[in-house]
């Protein structure tokens, strides 16, 4: 009951702040465009012609197998959703903890017979469900529309959405930690974007380390690589997954998940010790 109350509260907040409506509106617009504006002419399992808003799309190299078109298109879309989706999701959920910790508001929540960890994790769960629902709506909707139009049902696209959600969870855990420590929405959001920017090039940590003279610098680069989320690797894995080119790397997935879990654990611990 209490967890449900916190999840519902998070949804109400997302609805009131137009976050959810913005997500849903943009997703719906995209899905409607794909549904009504994109016309595919499939002949014997191959894409013979395609039009967007009535304008013919150029088909380089003649007919292409429709499965290749679908997996190629969905993998590109998965890559786009990975970057843009996490950017928007971080922006939309960065205020969750600072809003909760506002003077005069936090007292109302924490004076109830519910543990602090429960309150924080309840809101975390609420944030996760908001983003998961949006991802499911967008990716699931796209998969269904493409499936109906082409007859190719690419379930791996949903697995890719799940991977995107896992990376987002890691960032949400980090935002909760920054939020509990600082109580600041701008700082939570900016540091999360900073984390993205720093973690991306670390995929090439071997090359970066090879170019360094100092052993300390090398240790720092390698340490950061293993501690921070593997945003670049997982982005590549998401695309490969949809293209049937292999499963995501277990180490990248595990360390990214661990990063989020440790951040969330620290956030809960600090939140429990905090005086309001």
């Amino acid at each position, binding site marked *: 009951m209490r967890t449900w*109350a916190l999840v519902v509260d998070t949804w*109400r907040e997302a609805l*009131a702040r137009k976050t959810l409506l913005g997500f849903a509106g943009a997703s719906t617009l995209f899905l409607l465009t794909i549904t009504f504006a994109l016309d595919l002419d499939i002949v014997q399992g191959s894409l013979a012609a395609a039009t967007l808003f009535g304008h013919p799309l150029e088909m380089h190299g003649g007919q292409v197998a429709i499965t290749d078109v679908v997996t190629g298109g969905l993998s590109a879309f998965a890559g786009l959703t990975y970057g843009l989706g996490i950017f928007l999701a971080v922006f939309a959920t960065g205020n969750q903890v600072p809003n909760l910790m506002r003077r*005069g508001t936090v007292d*109302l929540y924490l004076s109830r017979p519910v543990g602090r960890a429960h309150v924080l994790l309840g809101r975390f769960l609420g944030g996760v469900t908001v983003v998961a629902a949006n991802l499911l709506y967008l990716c699931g909707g796209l998969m269904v529309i493409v499936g109906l139009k082409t007859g190719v049902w690419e379930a791996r696209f949903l697995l890719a959405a799940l991977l995107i959600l896992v990376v987002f969870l890691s960032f949400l855990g980090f935002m909760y930690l920054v939020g509990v420590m600082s109580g600041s929405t701008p700082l939570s959001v900016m540091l999360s974007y900073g984390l993205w920017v720093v973690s991306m090039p670390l995929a090439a940590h071997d090359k970066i380390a090879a170019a360094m003279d100092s052993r300390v610098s090398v240790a720092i680069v390698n340490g950061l690589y293993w501690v921070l989320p593997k945003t670049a690797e997982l982005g590549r894995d998401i695309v490969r997954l949809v293209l049937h080119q292999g499963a995501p790397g277990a180490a990248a997935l595990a360390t990214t998940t661990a990063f989020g879990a440790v951040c969330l654990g620290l956030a809960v611990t600090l939140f429990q010790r905090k005086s309001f």
Partner: protein
Amino acid sequence: MSVYRDVSATISVHGLVKVYRSRRRRLRALDGVDLEVGPGEVFGLLGPNGAGKTTLVKIVLGLTRPTEGAVRIRGANPDHASARLKVGYLPEGHRFPGYLSGVAALRLFGRLAGVTEGVLDSRIPELLDLVGLADRGCDRIGRYSKGMTQRLGLAAALIDRPEVLLLDEPTDGVDPVGRRHIRDVLLAERERGTSILVNSHLLSEVERTCGRVAILDRGRVVREAAIDELTRGGLRFRVRAEGGVVEPATPVPGVGLTRCNGYLDVEAESLDALNALLDALRRDGRLLTEVTPLGSDLEDVFVKLVGGGQPPTPRAAGGGAQ
């Protein structure tokens, strides 16, 4: 041996110290506070700004960690969530999420308090009616006035029929009619047997609702007593007579007299001295119309204790404060 004087006390605070530390200074917000609020008691917490009243209430609820000392609420450590079962709290300057309606806020905080949906369905309209928000329950809180959010805060504090109520400035920003309304609600809760801790600047409200008060100043309890005890005067009386009254022709030993607006304020050493004065006035041909014992109002006591030690101004006992 237990540090608590009364194990049956609803709220027990013993040797409470809270020090806020920043880079530049240390602020001792509470400095060895001992308090107990009994079952069914309405206890007032008074003090100037920065005296530590809100800090004390937050520590009792487990919102703020004490530096030293022990706190129990119905015998339990407030750090445990279960200690807050059936405890209502109205924080000072509370901010409900503006995106909620009054009904949605009561449902949210009712659910967090563990109240079942069925009970909430009947309890929410009942509470909105009680605090005078029956016709505004579906409006967003963002559109409420300060007084309305205060009433909603009181309703939220009462959502699970609490056995303990902690109210921090409950009438803050509320108009006189609303204040009376809130006072009536508190008196009804007192009749129900709820233990209430009220922290308020409005001394008249405290005087009318509380049985006992503690006055905090700079983190210390400077006085704790029953309201009657605090406001009871010594042997001081106001004497009126037809056509005004002046000092008797013959001085009376053992009385101090102050003449003002046709009446005499008398400070007597004993009842015999008072009666000797009255006899002297009667001998002078004065027709006495009134002899009223004087007390101090709570404000006088408060100002004397925390405001520089000025002597209290006498007033007629039973008169309104403020």
